[in-house]
């Protein structure tokens, strides 16, 4: 189980590191992608486009490196839930937009991103579970 957890941590941390990195390259592009969802007031779009990629990068690094891993998993799990709600809402409204999850590299239809995020959410939930409950002895190296 230990190597599975390690592998999945590497995968989840790596995904957020790459996703954040691709968006940091062009925050203006990412801001447009967020705006297309029509979920946030315009004044919140720019600041979120500046902040969110760095939060993904820092939490991705924390999941990979170890310090604050559980906290980073909590943040990434919450973020992924928010992404799922946003993508599902855009999909249900029939918006002709792309997710923007991987910056300019996002070209897949929204339904694919929804499935991807649902799988990622399950992986993060499982990692949170194997990392143990607060205060309990760890079942493996953290």
């Amino acid at each position: 189980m230990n190597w599975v957890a390690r592998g999945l941590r590497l995968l989840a941390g790596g995904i957020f590191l790459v996703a954040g990195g691709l968006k940091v390259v062009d925050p203006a592009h990412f801001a447009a992608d967020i705006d297309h969802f029509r979920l946030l007031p315009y004044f919140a779009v720019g600041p979120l486009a500046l902040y969110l990629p760095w939060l993904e990068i820092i939490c991705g690094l924390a999941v990979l490196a170890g310090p604050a891993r559980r906290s980073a998993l909590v943040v990434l799990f919450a973020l992924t839930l928010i992404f799922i709600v946003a993508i599902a809402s855009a999909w249900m409204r029939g918006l002709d937009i792309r997710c923007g999850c991987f910056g300019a590299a996002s070209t897949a239809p929204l339904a694919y991103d929804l499935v991807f995020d649902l799988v990622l959410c399950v992986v993060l939930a499982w990692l949170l579970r194997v990392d143990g409950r607060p205060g309990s002895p760890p079942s493996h190296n953290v």
Partner: protein
Amino acid sequence: MARVGMHPSGTDVCRKVALLLVLALVPALVTAWLHPKRPALGWARPAVTELALADALGLAPPVIWVDARPDDEYGAGHVPGAVSLNEDRWDALLPKFLEAWQPGMRVVVYCNSQRCDASREVAVRLRHELQIDNVFVLQGGWNAWLEAQKK
């Protein structure tokens, strides 16, 4: 701090969550300050003028049509004479647009339908970054064009 050999307590986790949230602010602020592609910050979405297809076709020449859809969709079919300019490959496509564009031209930008925003984004960038006036967005986009061809 977490005790050695034990998982962090709920309070530790919460404190570190707050720390991660604050930590991300630092590079975000630097990005807002220094990044050459930082987003525009403002209270209101920049306004663009939308035109129905009949009004767009009735614009006094010279008019240039801009296809803001992805490359593959442009390749599959576009308004005759339209130049491709989308946000995904903005830097690569812009020179071709500038070759075709002449000062004084009216620019009509379109994407797929009423439910896409790519044309709006391209129109805003043309107006703000290139200081081009007379930029319009086609209501209904490519779908409206196709519908009109059927009639």
